[in-house]
């Protein structure tokens, strides 16, 4: 036995020396591979979006027809051209249409243009919107998006973050009281989350705005916006109550249910029993034996909550007339404003892959069993 101990000791010694440069090289290689793989994912995702929003090129036909109609209306409405004979007029219209088509490069094959769109999107050269403008009148997609993002973040961050942490907190509490009446009530309420948030929103508006007149129907601040910062904040908070409640009401029960089941599974692990036998306090057990080993999935869930925040809630924002990214996307889709849609998708795609990339590294930090780069067991 003693010799066995010695050999194991002897083996573990030199390993420490070569470990550090080894680890660096391994992590470097891994980071490189992972970045390439994720970049390819983004390229595919964005290109698919470009294809879909352009209807695989069919949108060009619609656009040319639109141009012809607009140009035609313009020419026919121009009093200086009224004297021209109809054939000249038609020729003039055709010339203008060709010019406009050339300006928009619609005469080039869709495939060539789709690659250009892709490159522009990937380099965050988001270009100009076709129809939509920002509140300040700019057609820059970047400006349009930047203007909407704070509103969306404000709403969904306050709703989803309180939902996330609230649900975990309550779930931990319930997992300790598994089978109690409170637990049963929450479980029974879980299917209520199949109802979308905007549906709760409509009911909340009905009750608190329409019937009770204590909260506003929608929008972000009162019109006209209050002068002082304090009043402005107060008005903002008042406008936030209903949409935030709608999101929380929608998600809370099913989130608690999920996390509670998750914690229940992990608190029946042998090492939790062992910790109890060791006479550790309930708080220590909860922190070191339940939360700590389950941190990686909690962090994943949190990261995806963060990504989800940026997208906004399309219908909810529309119901509450909230000037966020969700509502912007809704408007852009309904009028085929391709650059705005693509710009939005590119933004989300980049955020998503960055999160996934960071998650891989965070996992390795949190869980010693995860070794970045798939090294053989130490």
């Amino acid at each position, binding site marked *: 036995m003693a010799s066995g*101990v010695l050999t194991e000791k002897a083996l573990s010694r030199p390993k420490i020396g070569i470990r550090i440069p080894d680890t660096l090289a391994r992590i470097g290689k891994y980071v490189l591979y992972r970045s390439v793989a994720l970049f390819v994912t983004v390229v595919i995702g964005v290109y698919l979006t470009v294809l879909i929003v352009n209807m695989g090129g069919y949108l060009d036909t619609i656009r040319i027809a639109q141009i012809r109609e607009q140009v035609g209306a313009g020419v026919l409405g121009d009093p200086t051209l009224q004297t021209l004979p109809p054939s000249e007029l038609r020729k003039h219209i055709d010339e203008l249409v060709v010019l406009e088509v050339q300006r928009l490069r619609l005469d080039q094959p869709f495939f060539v243009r789709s690659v250009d769109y892709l490159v522009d999107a990937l380099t965050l050269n988001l270009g100009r919107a076709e129809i939509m403008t920002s509140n300040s009148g700019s057609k820059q997609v970047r400006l349009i998006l930047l203007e909407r993002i704070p509103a969306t973040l404000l709403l969904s961050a306050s709703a989803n973050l309180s939902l996330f942490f609230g649900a975990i907190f309550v779930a931990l509490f319930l997992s300790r009281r598994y089978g109690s009446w409170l637990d049963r009530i929450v479980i029974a309420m879980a299917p209520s989350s199949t109802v979308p948030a905007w549906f709760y929103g409509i009911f909340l508006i009905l009750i608190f705005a329409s019937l009770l007149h204590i909260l506003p129907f929608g929008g972000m601040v009162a019109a006209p916006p209050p002068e002082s910062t304090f009043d402005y904040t107060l008005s903002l908070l008042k406008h936030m109550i209903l949409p935030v409640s709608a999101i929380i009401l929608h998600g809370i029960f099913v989130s608690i249910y999920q996390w509670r089941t998750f914690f229940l599974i992990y608190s029946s692990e042998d090492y939790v029993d*062992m910790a109890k*036998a*060791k006479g*550790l*306090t309930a708080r220590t057990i909860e922190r070191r034996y339940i939360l700590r*080993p389950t941190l990686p999935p909690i962090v994943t869930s949190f990261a995806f909550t963060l990504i989800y925040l940026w997208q906004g809630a399309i219908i909810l924002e529309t119901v509450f007339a909230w000037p966020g990214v969700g509502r912007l996307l809704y408007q852009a889709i309904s009028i085929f404003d391709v650059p705005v849609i693509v710009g939005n998708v590119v933004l989300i795609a980049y955020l998503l892959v960055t999160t996934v990339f960071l998650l891989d590294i965070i996992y390795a930090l949190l869980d*010693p*069993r995860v070794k970045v780069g798939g090294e053989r067991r130490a």
Partner: protein
Amino acid sequence: MDKPILNVENLYLHFRATKGIVQAVDDVSFDLQRNEAIVFLGESGCGKTTLAKAILRLLPRNVHKYTGKVYMDDTNLMELDDERFRREVRWVKMSMVPQAAMNSLNPVIRVGDQVAEPTEAHFGLKKEALAQAREVFQRVGVPVDFMSRYAFELSGGMRQRVAIAMALVTSPDVVILDEPTSALDVLTQANIMNVLKRIKKETETSFILITHDISTSSELADRVAGMYAGQIIELNDAEHFFSTPLHPYSQKLMASVPTLHQTKKLEFIPGQPPSLINLLPGCRFAPRCPSKFEKCAQDPPLIDMGERRKVKCWLYANGKEK
């Protein structure tokens, strides 16, 4: 005879299940002297592990009946509230080596920290706890530089040693070993048993060893308790139990152990152990017992045979074998 370090009297632990009440531990009484090792032998599902959990009060949620007396130092542990039990009994007076050491170690905490944890929790002082852990690692034969490893980086035998180190770190009076070697290969088993024997010699610790492995248990045992269907059917010293067991079940059990160059056929016990739900009155072994007679329809008492030997069988109704 000294005062026993642990004295268990009429311990019951019944569970509620959908089909009825599971009588996993049913009227169990035994005592344990200082530096003594008692082995609980029995088939799978006879309530051995549940007995360990009942003594350490590690109860599932569906407990139906949990009564009896467990004395340590004149205190009835069953009367302590949960918080006092946690502070004064768990790992201070009694510790445990679990069945599967892999799952019993937290995967994301270094094993050294886990071994130090009980000392820290019960006596404070993180630094001393680590020093204590280092000392106990050496005692069970785990290299000290393994302290900064994680459970998944250790072999099965090393893990089991870590679990034993963890049980010994606070120098408790009683260590419950719940099948400490059943998942290991024979060589590792022998190593672990040697470690336990050495520790028993070097310290004052008493052991409760729970196992179905008769041959390895004989290494450590001073006394043996045979368990069948949630009850102790025989309490005997190791020497007598392994050579001339009293209870018909123990006799059959010993006859089923293979030995080298054996000419006689290995025996087995026909039939199945009873389900612990809705047990019939009378001796629980009667349906499988070769010496069954009419009296077996009544539940036999635990008959005192003198010299701390007890047997739960009507054959010994007069204090000696019929």
